[in-house]
């Protein structure tokens, strides 16, 4: 906790830089925020089932609070903020999945590809590490769609909220997500081995 508090100024600065489009700010930002977030996301590392994991409120909560306390959080910056939250969530999940995989023979954390159908046992899900790899590829081709997928899959935002955050129409988001989903499934299932 102390570490986090003492570096709040840096966090804010880095968040600004990242919001302004400086992708290089993400790594130092992550390493500053991560220890605290990892603590909050403790349940992830104890290997609870994926459906319980996808409640990233604790993690995002911490970010919001730290920034809001300093009155630096402008809520007109929502898109960047939520995007950062989803990126962090993704890293945390990936990290947890790696730890899991070291411990167990058939570990891995699966997350549903259609958040709205989570729990109905009809929607596909995929290993978070595979999704991460596929998203790395998607990022190189289409960063916008990657953000969209991250918001949906890692932050659990609804399609309406995603559209709202990215300032796009719901129809466009639906359309883009449909394409992105097909692309991801194809990459994960049939496509040549990644990397």
């Amino acid at each position: 906790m102390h570490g986090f508090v003492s570096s709040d100024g840096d966090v804010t600065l880095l968040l600004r830089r990242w919001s302004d489009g400086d992708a290089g700010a993400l790594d130092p930002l992550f390493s500053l925020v991560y220890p605290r977030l990892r603590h909050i996301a403790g349940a992830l590392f104890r290997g609870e089932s994926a459906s319980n994991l996808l409640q990233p409120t604790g993690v995002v909560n911490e970010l919001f609070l730290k920034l809001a306390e300093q009155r630096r959080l402008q809520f007109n910056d929502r898109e960047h903020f939520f995007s950062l939250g989803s990126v962090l969530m993704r890293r945390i999940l990936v990290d947890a999945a790696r730890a899991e995989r070291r411990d167990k023979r058939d570990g891995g954390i699966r997350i549903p590809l259609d958040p709205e159908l989570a729990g109905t046992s009809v929607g596909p899900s995929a290993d978070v590490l595979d999704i991460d790899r596929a998203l790395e590829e998607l990022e190189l081709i289409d960063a916008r769609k990657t953000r969209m997928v991250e918001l949906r899959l890692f932050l659990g935002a609804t399609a309406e909220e995603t559209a709202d955050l990215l300032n796009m129409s719901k129809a466009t988001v639906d359309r883009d997500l449909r394409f992105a989903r097909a692309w991801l499934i194809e990459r994960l299932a049939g496509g040549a081995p990644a990397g």
Partner: protein
Amino acid sequence: MDKHASDDASHWAELQRLFHRCDGLDATAIEAVLANEVADVALRERVRALLRSAESVTPDPAFATPDASAGEAAGFSPVSIGPYRLIEKLGSGGVGTVYLVERVLAETKVRAALKVLAPHAVDASFVERFHREQRLLASLDHPNITRLFDAGTTEDGQPYIVMEYVDGLPIDRYCDERKLDIESRVRLFLTVCDAVSAAHRGLIVHLDLKPSNVLVSKSGIVKLLDFGTSKWTQANGESTATLVATPAFASPEQLLNRPVSTASDVYGLGATLYKLLCGRAPFGNTSGVVRMEKALRGLEPESLARAAAADAPPRGNRAARRAQQELRGDLSTILDACLRNDPRERYGSAEALRDDLERYLSHQPIKARPQTSVYRLRKFIDRHRLALVVAVLVVAVSGASLAEAWVGQARALREADRAVRMQHFMHRLFRMANPDYTAKPVATVAEFLRAGVRNLPAYIQNPADLRTAMLGLAESMYASGDTDDARATLHHVLAMSQGSAAIGNRVEAEIYLAVIDFDRNEVAAGRALSAQAFRLAHAYPVSARVRILTDVYYAFNEDNNGFIKPGNLALLRKSAHEAIADHLPRNDQDLALHDYASDASMQGHVVTATRIFSLLRERYRGDPLALCDRANVDGWLAWIDNQSGHITESLPLFREAYDGYVQCQGPASAQALNEVPYWGDALIRAGRAADAVKLLEGTLPTWRRALGDKSDQVEILYYLSRAYSAVGRYRDAQPLAEEFLKSLRSRLAPGSRMFGLGQMALAEALVGEKCYAAARPYAVRAVRILAKPVRTAYGLHVEHEAQAILRGAATTAAVSPGCPS
């Protein structure tokens, strides 16, 4: 990046264009597009692969969703635990798995619920929480809180507790399945408040109150479950929540990790009641993070009043409309007071909330609202109307010279009588000016009426006659849809109606203004006006006509807007008899009969309603100026039959209503077009889907020209979509359902019932096209929305349809190759 991905990068825009271009086409069409537009063979194959993936549900065994409790299934599938024999698994949540168990005690079999901590959750904090639950439950002994029987550890060291088994439904589902009305829901909820109060008295907070934690057994007994996240509250203070409860129902302080208290449960109670009353959680379908962000920004949920307004039910489902109105008043205020962000601004305790709900049920002023004298007075008047009328009379009369007032009244009554005859002549005149659609357009009539108002003073010198004539004009303006002009004219009449001699005109102006207010949904203003008119009409010697009309308008508007009192229907019945006995002008008699019948129908007195409407129908027969009125009555009779399940009988009436409106207003009129969808619906339900298609399809072009999807009347899109699906024309059904949804988007909240209907229609079409994957999210949402409080048999019928479609969408049968997005 691998080869595929880098190839994709070079064709990215083209790949997306082709994907969307082909998405939804059948295999042949896709091949045609690819052959025409793509030279690159590899790119063609990429498009095909992506289209296949888009439709995939479980494309690879690796994608099979693991059972939510896979870890448990692998390591732990017991037959018995301790002395308990497992009967079935009831469910599993974040903390553990719950089983239905049985134990033989003194030769009696005892059933109980056994909750065991899932093995993957072995952690100090969980065990601690578990033990806390044990202690808490043991200390609570209340008939509405599940009792703890036993606790122990399984052979492999998992702690478990055994508690009372409740065979019941979550309270929201219970209310919906029993089709409980609002009052019964509130009454049932009082018990929940009682249980929470009892726990609070024992210094225990629940912190996860939500409908699924409140079960109701078949015999109607309420049981609160899951004190698992509860914690001891210190007698002197507040403590910090460490665990975020269900975000949709959690208080802002829980979401923000701030100190929790009993006020957090008041929030949970409010959120639960909100769900019971309007079918969705206060913030609707939001994700946890956005909900949290809203909490941090201090946003409060949409008030129940607004949420209810967004849920306009189709057509004149007046029962539903009435329910909506009920949600706009005190209940909305009570919920606002539960759901404030600042815990200090909420009710101080569950008991205070309960007391206010009780006050609401017994029509006493609630405490949640700042107690302004006007509000108190209104509630007081509601309860002591008769006594008050006398009081107002005394106050009003003592201010003026009694003798003078009486003389004035007598003269005014004579004049009014003359004026009334003139008014009715004018009324006839104006209606003749616009008897059917072949005459000049309505705009001319409006101008005509405005000119009348301007010129009247030049022709009529007697002030009473002038006022009465202007009232006649205002009424005609209103009848021809010119509400703003009618309003201005009525205010003008009010301004001219100073003094006791003009009371009759004043009362009449007020009741028409009240009607306009109700039309504009300004319920409070409308009620105030009609109540005032009612008081005046009974405090002063106005003409019989004015008094009867005032009674009719007052009683009908009260009931029609959800402020139902048994006396209102009786008053309408009395007024209808008086209107005929006193030989009121014909159209006033008809109005009294019509409102009596409508109210009877709303109150479920189907036989009376049918009798009076049939009588009205006879009265209108042969009157060429009453075509619209007759069509309206036919529409009502059809609607009553339809709602009572007499589908076949309703069909000819729908036709008559439609034909009548076509004659009096034209085929492109809103009224005529309004009958078509419901007529079509009746045809579908009568098993004549092909005829429904013919009717609705035939009307669609007219509708598009005259109203279109920018209007409020878009039901035709929905019913035609359903009709197409009913005859297997799914490909035609789909775009209509989509259009219906699109047109709703600008007007209604996404959780509205109409959206649910639209999603259902779309899912039905997609299932028909074997596009199960595409259908599924719509079907899921449709069921979610349509499972809301439903008060009619028809509503339940729709919900069951939606569930059947969802089951259809869950099939894993082979999908059609060319499914749309």
